[in-house]
């Protein structure tokens, strides 16, 4: 029976049907739902790993050990996992291994829009790309067969629009998970130079075989229509093309690396104009041009952002949108912001008041960079805050650290902050690190991690004690404070910023969306006391707003009673509703 499934659910289902018994991931939008869904199936093991490199290494071990294995991450996660990935492409697999790379054209929730088809070429891996939920399931399943047949890890590349679209998907038959025998084979799995040289030969042979496979595979197919325009495309862009250009012939690529050169040439010879429609980089276009085939692509389309059916129509049919329904100019922007009651809000409010330079990191708290908190000076990638603060200190001197902090979430700290903190101690940094511990991975949808004490499959586990860990690394000055208590927080910051040694402040308070301890007390603004100074609006909370006509503040119905705004009001105008 057909069921509505998120693209990510369909991938999980495909892995389950393929008999996968081990799966690992670090959550990252748009990939996060895959492993959560997979973990619900019976008799499978699924884990949140501390980061993507660890996830892939667990995957490599499980594969060498004979199990079919799924590893999932977002596009930038593959950067973290790139080291084991390139070498695992050399060793190949025992049980099939499929790596899902969820790319994010348009950067709905990412810091860049890299095109991970490039990893396929660079690491010499086959990459396949589904274009809807059904294919997401089918291709994931098939990817395990390809992995084992060609002795290679396989990348399945999806994009946000596929991961986060619901479509109808038909369940299929499940293969019983079967663990292949483990046999020691150092020449295949120990990549010291002498063995690796031999494996590189195998990699090149395998790429040749994969090219032949790509020529004949049903994943690459021509849909003939008018031969005036022929379009080569893949993934979600295929759906946009079918919508916008029903009259065109289409070569739909399911295997996007290696490319089927002969098939492409055959297609090119039969159409008058050949156009590549691919989001982000001209990966197909450049390869096809390099074979001397006349093809157009980025003349029409941008390397920036997501495409859409109307964009394709606009560019290929030269059709201008006649749009009279436009009120855009009158509408103020509505940027995302921290939730009411968010424990991070007090931190950024205080840092701004103290005029501190802030090296930031990736998570909900990155929103602290936006107005009115304006609380961040830099944010590069997962785990970069502590290292960038150390670098800044080395560039500008120790005195600078009296006004320098790094902020990093609990999950992000475990992901890749720990090693930088070791560096700070080892190389004698003295800046202050704030670990914003909200007891979850909030940004991606509240996944657990080693410091929450719960596993992906909801089992209680040994909880990583961040305070003890930080001390063990060699940090002697450690304070734990409640970020919703502004006086305590400010005092802790003053103490630690003034020290000539490195220190860590752990701000401890669960994410407001999972916190059962928030008082839920209601507040109101006593308009007799309010003098309209607007200081309360500087915390950037939807729970409190300023009424221009009255020149007074007011509490909105989104208030959860965190008690932050009464602390910033100098006139004691914000009061608890009694009873």
């Amino acid at each position, binding site marked *: 029976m057909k069921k509505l499934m998120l693209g990510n659910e369909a991938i999980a289902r495909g892995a389950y049907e393929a008999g996968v018994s081990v799966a690992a991931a670090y959550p990252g939008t748009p990939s996060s739902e895959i492993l959560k869904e997979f973990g619900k199936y019976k008799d499978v093991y699924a884990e949140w790993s501390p980061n993507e490199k660890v996830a892939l290494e667990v995957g490599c071990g499980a594969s060498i050990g004979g199990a079919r294995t799924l590893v999932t991450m977002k596009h930038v996660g593959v950067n973290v996992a790139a080291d084991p990935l390139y070498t695992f492409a050399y060793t190949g697999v025992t049980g099939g291994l499929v790596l899902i790379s969820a790319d994010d054209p348009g950067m709905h929730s990412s810091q860049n829009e890299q095109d991970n088809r490039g990893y396929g070429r660079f690491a010499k891996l086959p990459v396949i790309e589904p274009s*809807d939920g059904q294919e997401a399931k089918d291709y994931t399943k098939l990817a395990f067969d390809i992995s084992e047949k060609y002795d290679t890890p396989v990348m399945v590349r999806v994009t946000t*629009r596929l991961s*986060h679209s619901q479509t109808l998907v038909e369940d299929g038959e499940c293969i019983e998970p079967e663990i292949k025998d483990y046999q020691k084979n150092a020449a295949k799995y120990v990549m010291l130079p002498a063995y690796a040289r031999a494996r590189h030969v195998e990699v090149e042979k395998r790429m040749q075989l994969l090219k032949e496979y790509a020529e004949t595979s049903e994943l690459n197919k021509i849909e003939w229509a008018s031969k005036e325009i022929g379009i080569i495309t893949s993934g979600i862009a295929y759906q946009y093309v079918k919508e916008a250009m029903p009259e065109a012939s289409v070569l739909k690529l399911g295997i996007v690396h290696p490319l089927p050169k002969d098939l492409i040439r055959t297609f090119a010879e039969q159409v008058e104009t050949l156009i590549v429609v691919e989001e982000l980089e001209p990966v197909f276009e450049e390869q096809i041009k390099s074979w001397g085939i006349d093809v157009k692509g980025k003349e029409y389309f941008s390397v920036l952002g997501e495409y859409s059916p109307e964009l394709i129509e606009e560019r290929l049919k030269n059709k201008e949108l006649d749009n009279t329904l436009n009120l855009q100019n009158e509408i103020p922007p509505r940027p995302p912001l921290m939730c009411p009651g968010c424990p991070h809000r007090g931190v950024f409010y205080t840092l701004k008041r103290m005029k501190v330079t802030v090296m930031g990191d990736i998570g909900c708290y990155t929103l602290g960079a936006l107005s009115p908190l304006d609380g961040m000076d830099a944010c590069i990638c997962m785990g970069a805050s502590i290292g960038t603060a150390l670098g800044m200190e080395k560039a500008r001197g120790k005195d600078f650290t009296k006004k320098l902090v790094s902020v990093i979430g609990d999950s992000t700290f475990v992901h890749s902050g720990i090693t930088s903190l070791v560096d700070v101690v080892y190389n004698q940094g003295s800046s202050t690190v704030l670990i914003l511990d909200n007891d979850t991975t909030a940004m991606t949808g509240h996944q657990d991690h080693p410091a929450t004490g719960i596993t992906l499959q909801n089992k209680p586990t040994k909880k990583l004690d961040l305070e003890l860990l930080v001390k063990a690394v060699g940090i002697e000055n450690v304070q734990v404070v409640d970020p919703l208590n502004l006086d305590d927080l400010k005092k802790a910051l003053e103490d630690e910023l003034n020290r000539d040694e490195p220190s860590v402040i752990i701000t401890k308070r669960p994410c407001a969306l999972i916190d059962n301890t928030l008082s839920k007390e209601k507040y109101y603004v006593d308009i007799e006391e309010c003098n309209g100074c607007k200081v309360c609006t500087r915390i950037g909370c939807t729970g409190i707003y300023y009424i*221009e006509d009255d020149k007074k503040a007011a509490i909105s119905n989104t208030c959860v009673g965190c008690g932050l705004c009464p602390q910033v009001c100098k006139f004691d105008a914000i009061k608890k509703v009694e009873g």
Partner: protein
Amino acid sequence: MQKQIKDILIVGVGGQGTLLTSRILAQVAVQMGQDVKVSEVHGMAQRGGSVVTQVRYGEKVYSPIIKKGDADIILAFEKIEAARWLGFLKPDGKVIINDDRVDPLPVMSGKAKYPINITDKISQLVPDTQIVDATSLAIECGNIKSANVVLVGMLSDAIGLPPEEVEKAIKKMVPEKALDVNLKAFEEGRKLLSNAS
């Protein structure tokens, strides 16, 4: 030529329930034996930002996103969000707006103005605009969060979804403990439409 596909845009502010609404509508389409695609919003955009989810159903649906100027109907949970996404509506499309105001951050802090008479302006551009106070009805039903389902009640009649199928979908998609409130909200939404016409 009559369009083969129904295109519905659901717009609002992160946290208002656009996702659940789109899932209920998609479930109804499945029950009616239609092909259906839903494009959802996850991650950063959910944190109180402007959000849009899109539902497309019909015999065969390719793209999960709707072309600008092509949507049959916009269901807006907040006034200025209706205006923000209006460019997606086809010229003779329909707009249903919850008469609710959620100030964006620049407005809250006094840096921008919330546009006045925005619903009048929408009504001028789109003759088939309906403005309803779904929030008050939702509070009457027992939970402010069910405002989205009040609007589903209005929408279902507007695009000819059988009410019993919508109820079935609500029962499938809404958690047990919130079911009664939501079924009531759906009924109130339907009543609203019959009173208006």
